[in-house]
């Protein structure tokens, strides 16, 4: 079994619901985001990027890519970061020494360090949130707890708290369930009949930074729709535009 996620960029509306639900569900303190969505090429979210053919908006959600050849796993000196039987890259908070080598090794910038005690940070903010129960794998590896210790690294877990002991899911990951555009798909890549397998084999998909050999298990269905909202321009009018012109 190898769980993977497929994200249809045609359906992504850049609403950031996946990022917010992930933050709430996993009790992430301020400044920490396991999942983030940006407008490709733009300094400002939801603002169009000027191309020679006109303006264009395309979003890109990025969380842990659950790599089959994960550099974070290979560099971790204590084995705190490991790949479970379902192919998910997880962090055992009890073993993490906070050396942050995994963060330096990860090309996706998805790993988040607890620079201060998350519990205190949330208390200071005046509210508590998140899935409240500890999750251990094989009864000994702490892969989720509401208040991670200060000084350890955390990241997306494919909502391991929703996974049963036999590796099946009762409820899909929070980001998949919450996505209003139903842009996210989750399932077993080893099962040829799963929806994710069919999408990966039938659609034009890509993975981020494949040149690093990380073999990510998050696939993106390439955007096919034209999102141009203005143009095409003449050579002269193009020269008068700045690349990141904001549409009011």
């Amino acid at each position, binding site marked *: 079994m190898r769980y993977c996620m497929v994200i249809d960029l045609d359906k992504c509306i850049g609403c950031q619901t996946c990022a917010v639900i992930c933050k709430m569900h996993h009790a992430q*303190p*301020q*400044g*920490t*985001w396991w999942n*983030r969505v*940006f407008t*490709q*090429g*733009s300094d400002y979210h939801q603002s169009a*990027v*000027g*191309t*020679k053919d006109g303006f*264009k908006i395309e979003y*890109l959600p*990025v969380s842990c890519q659950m790599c089959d050849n994960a*550099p974070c796993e*290979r*560099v*971790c*000196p*204590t*084995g*705190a970061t490991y790949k479970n039987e379902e192919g998910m890259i997880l962090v055992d908070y*009890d*073993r*993490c*020494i*906070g*050396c*942050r*080598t995994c*963060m*330096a*090794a*990860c*090309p*996706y*910038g998805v*790993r*988040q*360090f*607890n*620079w*201060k*005690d998350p519990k205190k*940070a949330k208390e200071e903010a005046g509210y508590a949130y998140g899935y409240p129960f500890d999750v251990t794998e094989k009864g000994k590896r702490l892969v989720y707890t509401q208040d991670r*210790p*200060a*000084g*350890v*690294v955390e990241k997306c877990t494919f909502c391991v708290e929703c996974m049963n002991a036999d590796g099946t899911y009762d409820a899909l990951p929070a980001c998949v369930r919450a996505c209003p555009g139903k842009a996210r798909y989750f399932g077993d890549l080893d099962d040829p009949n799963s929806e994710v397998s069919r999408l990966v084999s039938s659609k034009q998909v890509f993975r*981020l*930074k494949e040149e*690093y*050999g990380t073999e990510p298990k998050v696939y993106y269905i390439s955007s096919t729709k034209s999102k141009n909202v203005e143009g095409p321009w003449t050579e002269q009018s193009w020269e008068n535009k700045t*690349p990141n012109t904001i549409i009011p």
Partner: protein
Amino acid sequence: MKKLSAKKTAALVIGAAMCAAGLAAWIYQLVQGMQVTNLRNSFTWGLYMGSFEFFIAMATGGILAFSIAYLWNIETLKPFVKIASIGSLASVVAAGVAIFEDLGEPFHALYMIITPNVGSPLFWDVVILTLYVIVCLVAVVLTLLPDTKKHVHDRGYRMTNEENCRRFSFIAFPMAFLLNIITSFMFATQNTREWWHSALIPVNACAEATAVGLSFTILLCVLMVRHEIFVENSDGIRLLSRIAAASIAAYIVMSFIEIVPLAWSGTQESRHLLHLIFHTYGPLFWLEILLPLLAMILFLVGGGLGKELVSVAGILVIAGIFIQRMMLLLPAFNSIPLTLPVAGKLWTFPIAVGTFTEGEDVFVRFWNYVPTAVEWIVGILPVGLIVFVMAAAAILFRLNPGEE
């Protein structure tokens, strides 16, 4: 009771004070979390990691001097091997402390032994660091043994200590280089960071370590060896200076060789990296080249190589290589690997910083890393440790030949 010299006592007190200040700041960091540093998610290693790399390089010199003295039987180096070996021991312990300061959860460190990941370069770094501490300890004991000769003879040792030192040098000499090679694998193996992913990094690390390690050893000798012994054995110091100068030349050449493929590739990523190296951090890059270059000239054309001249050269190398170790980190972390070509331009995917400060960005593409006051004070601890160990050694042992 023998009266302690004022200089040694002052050095001991200064070292202890530095350790106390560093330790207090470290405890503060452990209580408050690493938010007290200026490190964040996009820039995860800074002063502590740079110091660790730097002390590793410094630790190379003493053992090299020891090995060279006995492998090639250079009599004029032998009066310096006690100080050199203790200098290496102090530096490698300082490196160990510096890397511990960098850990977010140092109390979990035992898992490096309980559940080690033998594929991790950091694991092997800890292994080599531990072995090197043993190498330094053995070298220190061997060099101090003549002082306890009677005791050794009572136990029935047959070989002379000279033979032991020579035989041990066959292990110590390659270990000094292995320490730097394996430590640099932590960077060189990371193919997602263009600034680090190079087979030249371990080789260059050896050259840098030889230069700064021997410079540090020379400085220690200037400070701790009696003037007449220093002058009498100036050929030994001159030899170390020349090796340091040759290493500096190799380091400078290799540093520019690293730049050539970057400039040649012409990709947007490498252009961005070059911009960081030569523009954003340009002054630091030129300092890491020019300071050792000046030291090399001083080492080579210094004629009689008076104490003042070698001291200045040593300080220049130490400053240059420390900057070089920081420069290993500064452009690397600000060259974020997740980039996409959009509308003909390179677009970097922002990273969440990991903390929240009102009015400041949560997602960044560039982090202006400057160590905080707390980091500097924590960073003093390993330096204080070196000062303290050297002063204590000067008080406890007869480091100069013929000393009572």
